[in-house]
């Protein structure tokens, strides 16, 4: 991320100098800061709600039962996660929320999954392979029905807004598989 950030910031400033967009650039810094505050406040609400609900799951033991139920499904992808570990429940619930397009539940549950995966991390501050698999699954955004896209198409009077469902599903599944394949290939190379 250090390289990405350095390149983005310095390229932007050099560009702004040559294109006369310096004022716009400076303004955009403060707009970016404002967006970060707004999104953080929004996240503060929904993340706290889901931390509360998942704590009930932990205290009642339900989180271990859910983990036990879904262990067979995720064990091939997450080999270093112990049986019935809470991270399995958080990851499964996150993927289910993603499938049904419930972003407001998916992100907090994903954060919960990261906390649980970090509890297994022997080297804090360094990403584990399990975390990478989980993040790659999330950036592929696997969902059954892209409701927001269909909604937008419908509101502009598309003839058949639901026609995008199948291509989106094909695109999202193949790109998820491809991203996982790339990740596993990288592991072979960098081990």
């Amino acid at each position: 991320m250090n390289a990405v950030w350095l390149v983005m910031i310095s390229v932007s400033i050099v560009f702004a100098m040559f294109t006369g967009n310096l004022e716009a650039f400076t303004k955009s810094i403060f707009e970016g800061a404002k967006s970060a505050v707004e999104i953080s406040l929004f996240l503060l609400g929904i993340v706290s709600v889901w931390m509360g609900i998942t704590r009930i799951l932990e205290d009642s033991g339900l989180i271990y039962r859910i983990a036990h139920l879904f262990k067979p499904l995720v064990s091939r992808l997450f080999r270093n996660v112990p049986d019935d570990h809470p991270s399995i429940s958080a990851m499964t619930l996150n993927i289910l929320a993603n499938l049904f397009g419930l972003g407001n539940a998916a992100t907090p549950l994903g954060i919960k999954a990261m906390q649980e995966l970090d509890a297994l991390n022997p080297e804090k501050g360094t990403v584990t392979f399990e975390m990478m698999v989980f993040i790659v699954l999330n950036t592929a955004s696997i969902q059954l029905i892209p409701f927001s896209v269909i909604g937008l198409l419908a509101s502009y009077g598309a003839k058949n807004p639901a026609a995008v469902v199948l291509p989106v599903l094909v695109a999202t599944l193949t790109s998820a598989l491809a991203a996982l394949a790339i990740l596993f290939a990288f592991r072979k190379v960098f081990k």
Partner: protein
Amino acid sequence: MIEAVNHVSLLLIPAFILFAVVYGALKKVDVYDSFVAGAREGPQIILKIFPYLLAIFIAIKGFQASGAFDFIRNAFHGMFSFTNVPLEVMSMAIVKPLSGSAATALFTDIIRTIGVDSTATRIAAIIMGSAETTFYVLAVYLGSVNIRNTRYLVPVCLAGDVVGIVIAIWVA
């Protein structure tokens, strides 16, 4: 099919919360106290995420405002002119991993200017539905556990995005 999924997704969260609290109560858990104790972790997590979000957001906004984004988009469009992919779709492909709100704005712009039943709209819709705002996900998830060494995660995610966009254009 879409109706059915819509119903399930409307029902899922309320049903899950009901199940969680009833199951907890049956297991003699003080559900109110548990909820409050869990929710107390929220602010600490957000405090960890905030500086990462801030760094990503000013970089992305600055990149767009400086004109660097337009330059790169035009360069890409020139490089891939043989594919006949519309310029707007090229913007979509570059914007989507960076910013969700910018992608939505661009999508409605494509619908309005090119037409709701056009090929460009179709490709853009598939990109909208199948790609995620990668940098936001990275900032939030990695930030929440203070990950500084990301190993090879960023190149893998970006390669995944490229594959996703190629597939989106291909299936459209």
